[in-house]
């Protein structure tokens, strides 16, 4: 997910130049929202999380030393905000009701024609992702969609690399069963 911006824009924000912060927000908010949406699987919570991310950014941009790229830092802040929200959630969404899944697939793609042409697999994967338990979804989003390495995911989640591998393996099995509607695999 591209969240990087011109380092000069970040320095302008740090100097408090008028309009710089607005430009920074405009340049990055879609990426931040997309990550929140995928991690949290809830549009409203994703919008709230995006607000929280920028509150943290505004509070700490003065202290940003530029040791890492701004995009990397913003990505990390976003993931941490989402993980905090996920930890607070008590409800576990493990349901794999076919009706719910079909509704989600229909909701994800614009129209049946669009789905048939290009987005069918993506729409099914996206819908299946929303039905994964939070822990599993976080691993898949970070590893497979955000393209982080196993070690980076392990560091972010505070678990070992082996735990990440096991969670990913189980999450993939569940995803495949949802995407292919293979009932046997769900129970396996």
């Amino acid at each position, binding site marked *: *997910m591209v969240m990087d911006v011109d380092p000069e824009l970040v320095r302008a924000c740090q100097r*408090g130049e008028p309009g710089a*912060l*607005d430009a920074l*927000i*405009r340049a990055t*908010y*879609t990426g931040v*929202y*997309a990550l929140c*949406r*995928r991690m949290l699987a809830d*549009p409203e919570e994703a*919008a709230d999380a*995006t*607000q929280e991310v*920028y*509150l*943290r*950014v*505004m*509070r*700490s*941009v*003065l*202290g*940003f*030393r530029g*040791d*890492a790229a701004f995009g*990397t*830092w913003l990505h*990390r*802040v976003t993931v*941490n*905000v989402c993980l*905090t929200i996920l930890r607070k959630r008590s409800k576990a969404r493990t349901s794999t009701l076919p009706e719910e899944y079909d509704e989600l697939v229909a909701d994800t793609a614009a129209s049946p024609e669009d789905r048939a042409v290009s*987005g069918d*697999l*993506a729409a*099914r*994967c*996206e819908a299946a*992702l929303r039905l994964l338990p939070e822990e599993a979804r976080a691993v*898949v989003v970070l*590893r*497979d*969609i955000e*393209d982080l*390495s*196993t070690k980076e995911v392990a560091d972010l989640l505070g678990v070992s690399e082996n735990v990440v*591998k*096991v969670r*990913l*393996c189980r999450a*993939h099995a569940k*995803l*495949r069963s949802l*995407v292919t509607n293979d009932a046997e695999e769900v129970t396996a």
Partner: protein
Amino acid sequence: MSATRRFCREVQGELPALLAGEVSGWPERTMRAHLRHCSDCASELKRQEHLAQGLAAVRDTDVEPPAELLDGLLQSAARPGLRERAAVPARGAISGARPGLSVAFLTVGALASTGVGWAAWRGARWAARRVSR
């Protein structure tokens, strides 16, 4: 569980890493050799590739933020006083530290350990006096 079956499970657990190019050297060669001979693991690899293709397509799909989100963010940015707050890095950001909190913890820790040390010293003196009587 037989050794072969256990090995298949290990290979299948490493398939995402293999597809991501994280496995190299002899582990990669061992896995590839196994995949040539084991039909179960080979079909698992195919399924994994299909899923990876789907997830890559998800990555390329745009997620449209709600229309009012940007306005809300810009309003928050314009709120006076926010930027004037101390430039304390957010918790979980790369620097991670909160200097004020760290100083408070250190002070409390120092006071507590001084107290414990003083109590131990008094206790030892009292015990020594009792023994010498």
